């Protein structure tokens, strides 16, 4: 299995085919690789339907934005901003998400500089997880929970974002680990018991990916 390399979030929208369009990345594992934590049914719908729709709609918005940009139509560009934010954010967020998940057999706690930074910011790995779980569960409606890196203070922070607002553009934090708490991310398996999903997803977090992102960011 090829371990996916971490990429800065800003580079994600530049990963395009020759036509310049955003593309749906492949998962680094099979749809059933995260069972029983996340079912293959969810993974397949989440990837091929939800994430793909963000990619398709992002490309449509970017095409219109390019035309508006060429003709200097500021009004049209401004009108397109919500669609770019929503679909661009959805594409960025889900790409980061697939990469920071892995089969439970391959998930082991962070080591090295990331582990030290977690301890410094939260006291311990377990304290970080319980704080991040609580904040992520508490997201109202649709959104994401993030472990992020604050470049100004050189420290880790926990943040949440609404809808598909991307972490870096919204808060300036560099994404280290993201957890999707839109209902589509867990509903078929967990129904309305979001706390169970967030509690269990720690089993499939890819801390090697997180370490690579952290090392690239600091």
């Amino acid at each position, binding site marked *: 299995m090829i371990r996916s390399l971490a990429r800065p979030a800003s580079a994600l929208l530049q990963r395009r085919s020759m036509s310049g369009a955003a593309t749906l990345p492949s998962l680094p594992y099979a749809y059933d690789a995260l069972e029983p934590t996340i079912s293959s049914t969810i993974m397949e*719908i989440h990837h091929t339907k939800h994430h793909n729709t963000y990619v398709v709609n992002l490309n449509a918005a970017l095409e219109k934005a390019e035309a508006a940009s060429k003709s200097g139509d500021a009004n049209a560009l401004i009108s397109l901003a919500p669609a770019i934010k*929503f679909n661009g954010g959805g594409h960025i967020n889900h790409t980061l998400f697939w990469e920071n998940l892995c089969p439970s057999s391959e998930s082991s706690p962070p080591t090295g500089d990331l582990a030290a930074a977690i301890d410094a910011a939260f006291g311990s790995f377990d304290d970080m997880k319980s704080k991040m779980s609580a904040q992520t569960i508490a997201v*109202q*409606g649709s959104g994401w929970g993030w472990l992020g890196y604050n470049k100004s203070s050189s420290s880790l922070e926990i943040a949440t974002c*609404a809808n598909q607002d991307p972490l870096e553009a919204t808060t300036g934090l560099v994404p280290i680990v993201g957890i999707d708490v839109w*209902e*589509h991310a867990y*509903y*078929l398996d967990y*129904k309305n018991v979001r706390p169970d999903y967030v509690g269990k997803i720690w089993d499939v977090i890819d801390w090697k990916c997180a370490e690579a992102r952290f090392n690239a960011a600091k």
Partner: protein
Amino acid sequence: MIMKLSFALLIPAVASYNIPAASRREILKKASAAAITVAAPGLAGAYDLPDLPYAFDALEPWIDAPTMKIHHDMHHQTYVTNVNKATEGKPAVDIVALQTDALAAGPGVRNSGGGHYNHAFFWDEMTPADKASKTKPSSALQSKINAAFGSTEGMKEKFAAAAAPGAVFGSGWCWVVVNGKDELEIVGTPNQDNPLMKGVKDEIKYPILGLDVWEHAYYLKYQNRRPEYVGNWWNVLNWDKVNENFDYVMKNHAGVPVRG
């Protein structure tokens, strides 16, 4: 934690609060059945989960029975439990009245008080498809629809656009409302907000119909196919109830009352 209080404990608790007659009646009615379900020890919860006015499978095939059961018994129940917690120790206020200052009252009241009202409103405006198909907008309502949207079809198209994912938000509700000028509008609100809440829109507006577009409302049957759910939902909308809602808001400029 659900607890049962004895009738004797309840009466002093009820008597000592400045509770509006309608809510007090509700509380006493349930207490007279010799038990009351409360959300927290020591105090009567002011709000209850209303029963659906139809069976869980009544809205099939447009909304599936498992969704109705989980949506009612789990999601709506949680909002009721949490609004009772959020308003514990405060004088009981009718759930419609609670909406007005929900933003100022804080996230507990906003999210759970909004959630309780929205879902209670939602169950009552729907009915099995064979009955719904025999209902239609009243002539007064139809005139307003035509004035605002051109036609009922025009309204449904604009509603579909407003309810689309990413139109405004991930989770929320899409409403047809009467505004301050007695005209109809279509508005979307995020999460469990609604247009009765001061500060959510430019002015308070009064829903006559509304659709839950949180993913939990449709995911088991429709997955990501929200537009299909939105289009199908009209099959179970009870226009008789919408007509009543319209008459009520036009007359009172207040939110439609709900059970619970």
